[in-house]
């Protein structure tokens, strides 16, 4: 069965980006939360904002929701300003709620979702929203009797009750167990498959990799990578070489062509290389004794560490590609 978008509204047919963030700068005192960030999200995309804590993910989302005003730059959501888009009921959101459930007590789940639906002009039917959020059996449950994962799903139901074109989720699976996260993303993907646009913040690489069409990596308020997971994986620290070598000198290993980082643990050597072929050639040419060489593709975690770690100076994916094409041996890519 193919799911269809319930109600296309007039004016929805335009092909412009759903979210447009242009040169957005935002500071908290001397701390720069967003440093001239550019970001566009097209209709129907599922985009992950990936980054460590303090990278600016939540600030970006709260600006997109109109909870905060960007200090510099322009922001548009669904072709208007964030507050108008929210007031028009075309945006849904799940924010971080800290330790609480995020729900009012003394009501049944069904009543809460029904009330939320009445806040929107084009809301979905309550039964539909409950089904989408996997709450079919819980409509009569009091909100204070929900488990953490169930409360999270109710908050997802509240975010989608208005049948929104665009949904923002700020670390939606924080404090959920593996099974809960899997169920949650299954529902979210079902909703996105109806043609909705979803922007979510996470610091879980596997989530970004599994759920998003596109990953935007933030580091200290700047976009350091933007592309499909496979692109990000392919462009950063492309290969990892492992081999056994007695008495290897890390300094010498780092001088090998293409090597970006070298780790020596006893006789085990791990090299991160931007050009595995060049590295192997230069390793052979160096005359170092080695055995059991193994070359693997970098995983997203390596890419992420490279992009957001303090040692990495990689600014953008493009620079990383340029650096690789130059076959650079330098450890820092400017």
């Amino acid at each position, binding site marked *: 069965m193919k799911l269809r978008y319930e109600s296309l509204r007039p004016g929805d047919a335009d092909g412009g980006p759903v979210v447009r963030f242009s040169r957005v700068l935002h500071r908290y005192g001397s701390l720069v939360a967003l440093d001239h960030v550019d970001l566009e999200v097209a209709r129907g995309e599922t985009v992950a904002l990936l980054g460590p804590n303090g990278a600016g993910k939540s600030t970006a989302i709260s600006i997109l929701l109109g909870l905060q005003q960007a200090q510099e730059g322009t922001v548009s959501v669904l072709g208007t300003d964030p507050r108008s888009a929210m*007031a028009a009921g075309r945006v849904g959101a799940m924010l971080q*709620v*800290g330790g609480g459930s995020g729900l009012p*007590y003394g009501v049944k789940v069904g009543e809460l979702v029904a009330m*939320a639906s*009445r*806040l*929107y002009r084009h809301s979905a039917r309550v039964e539909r929203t409950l089904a989408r959020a996997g709450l079919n059996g819980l409509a009569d449950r009091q909100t204070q009797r929900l488990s953490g994962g169930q409360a999270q799903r109710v908050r997802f139901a509240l975010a989608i009750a208005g049948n929104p074109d665009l949904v923002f989720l700020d670390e939606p699976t924080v404090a959920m167990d593996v099974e809960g996260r899997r169920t949650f993303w299954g529902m979210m993907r079902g909703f996105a498959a109806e043609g909705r646009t979803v922007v979510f913040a996470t610091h879980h690489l596997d989530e970004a990799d599994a759920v998003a069409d596109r990953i935007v990596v933030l580091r200290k308020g700047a976009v350091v990578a933007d592309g499909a997971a496979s692109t990000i994986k392919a462009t950063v620290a492309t290969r990892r070489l492992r081999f056994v070598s007695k008495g290897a000198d890390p300094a010498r290993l780092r001088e090998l062509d293409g090597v970006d980082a070298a780790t020596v643990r006893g006789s085990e050597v791990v090299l991160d290389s931007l050009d595995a072929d060049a590295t192997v050639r230069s390793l052979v040419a160096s005359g170092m004794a080695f055995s059991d060489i193994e070359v693997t593709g970098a995983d997203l975690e390596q890419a992420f560490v490279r992009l957001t770690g303090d040692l990495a100076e990689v600014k953008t994916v493009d620079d990383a590609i340029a650096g690789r094409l130059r076959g650079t041996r330098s450890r820092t890519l400017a």
Partner: protein
Amino acid sequence: MTGLGAYLRFEVLRLLRNPRYVAITLGFPVVFYSLFLHNLQPAEHVAGTTWNAYFMVSMASFGAVVAALNAGGTRLAAERSSGWTRQLSVTPLPAWSYVATKIAATMVIALPVICVVELTGLLIGAVRLGLETWIVLTAVLWASTLPFVVLGVLVGFVASSETAYPLVTALMFLLSFFGGLFTPVRDMPVVLRHVADFLPTYHGASLGWAVVAGRAPGVRDAGILVVYALCLGLAVNWRHRAEETRALA
């Protein structure tokens, strides 16, 4: 604005569904009224009326104060800490609607509380007033509930979910006792009479005491209540804005 209506109905329903809330808001004033009637002569006169009528006004005011402070304080503090207020901030509801709806829902609840105490006065206190006097009395007591409703909301913003309950309980009894709702102010030491003159509980009940005694409600009392409501309202507005800013930093 249908959204606001749905939200208001939802808030009223939640208050009515809370057995503890209903028990204390109705239980305290009705039980106190019933207890203290048995110990006194029904015909004893206080401030130009019978004790039963006078004390009915006191307990109706007390009930309204209990309803107002408990609706705002404890629940609001809990909702702030649970993140529900944040969730509401990402709906089409305007930013002011959370506080406005809290105030409106509590006012809706306070009216039947006042009426139930009046009914208790009528039935077991044998208080006899003309229909017009009943209506004016109810209106006056209901209107004078507003500053307490706003105070309840302020407590909810100032206190944490742990401190709100003791704070509400303390405020409820201190304001009521020193405002002369349990013991008539004229029976209090002079110092306490001056204290009472600063309290909105005293001025709220004074409006009602005047009505049952057949006098016109005092303009000064009403004025003081308006000033209280305005000042507390400004404080709520300030806290609400501070909270919105802080939640984002």
